[in-house]
């Protein structure tokens, strides 16, 4: 019997709740700021989404988004916020893996890393196929 305080499920739960909330608040703030800038710049352009053309190049690649943010493009800032939003659940998985590791629940460390691997494979193959 050790005297060290055991890391428990409730600790993971609190931390995960915190990550999810923070992720949503930050990403939504970024989307909102980008949105204001986008409306200010392009509010009177014509919106046309009938034909599928894909998104403009400068919001398609991480490098393009980064350049777009530096040059103050609203759409690039929105897209950065959306990337943060998509990253929130992925971060949650990463953190769960860490939590299960502290609990010494190695079966669930494995399961968690497997889910993470599937998402990474999904990200990698989405580009090629």
């Amino acid at each position, binding site marked *: 019997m050790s005297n060290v305080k055991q890391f428990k499920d409730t600790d993971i*739960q609190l931390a*995960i709740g915190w990550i999810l909330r923070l992720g949503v608040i930050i990403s939504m703030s970024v989307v909102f700021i980008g949105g204001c800038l986008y409306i200010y710049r392009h509010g009177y352009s014509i919106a046309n989404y009938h034909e599928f053309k894909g998104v403009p190049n400068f919001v398609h690649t991480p490098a393009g988004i980064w350049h777009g943010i530096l040059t103050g493009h609203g759409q690039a800032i929105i*897209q950065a916020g*959306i990337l943060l939003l998509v990253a929130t*659940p992925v971060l949650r998985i990463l953190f769960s893996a860490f939590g299960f590791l502290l609990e010494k629940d190695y079966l669930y460390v494995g399961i968690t890393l497997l889910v993470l691997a599937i998402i990474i494979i999904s990200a990698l193959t989405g580009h090629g196929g």
Partner: protein
Amino acid sequence: MSVILFTLIILVGAYMAGLLGSLTGLGGGVVIIPLLSLVLDVNIHYAIGASLVSVIATSSGSAVAYVREGITNMRIGMFLEIATTTGAMLGAMLALHLQTSFIAVIFGVILIFTAVMSLRKKEEFVSQEKSWLSDKLKLNGSYPANGQTVQYGVRHVGGGFLMMLFAGVISGLLGIGSGSLKVVAMDGIMRIPFKVSTTTSNFMIGVTAAASAVVYLQRGYIDPGLSMPVVIGVLLGALTGSKILVHTQKSGWLRWTFAIVVTFLAIQMIYNGINHKI
């Protein structure tokens, strides 16, 4: 239509969708996609991309409370996410090769199913039976209810896993959370108590959607100009809905109204799909 007007219309529509979604438990995506594609003539690929992003926002936002209360079963969620993320990846890839009119028809069918699911009675049923696999995987758990701890067992892990795979495919294909299918897998097949099923399903939706979102992002399906009002509107609507829900328990008539509206939208989607108008 000018960008400013277009954005305002979507903002209001998405707010209503988020509000109704959280009040009825149907999720916002089922209203957002028909609104965008049927009313605003948005290409269904863009509509799916925008909806998916809003699904992640509402799942992450609303999961917080249940996770903290300890109702969500994180092990069940994590284990079944193997199935949903694999399915979501397959679904997102499938979406690239299917005709949009065909996707519209599938969407309509899932919409009708979701509407029916939202109307059924939600009785709490706690099973103590466990299976060998659920024991091995430590899926059996407990949750707090009225100051007490309720223990429950989990059965039919394999069947639930397969159903989750299907739910993942649908989520990736259509850009919705497919919460109703996830609840079928957990509540219907694995006999997990309703409260745990719904909250764990909600918890999982964000991860499932993220798995297909990474594919859609690279394909250019997620347009910032369109996602911005959708995601902000749905999130604000869902927040308002959860505030209202604390004060009122009678949502019977609301459920019926929403189910009828969703069924109407579903028929419209199927009709347009069959006639290749989408």
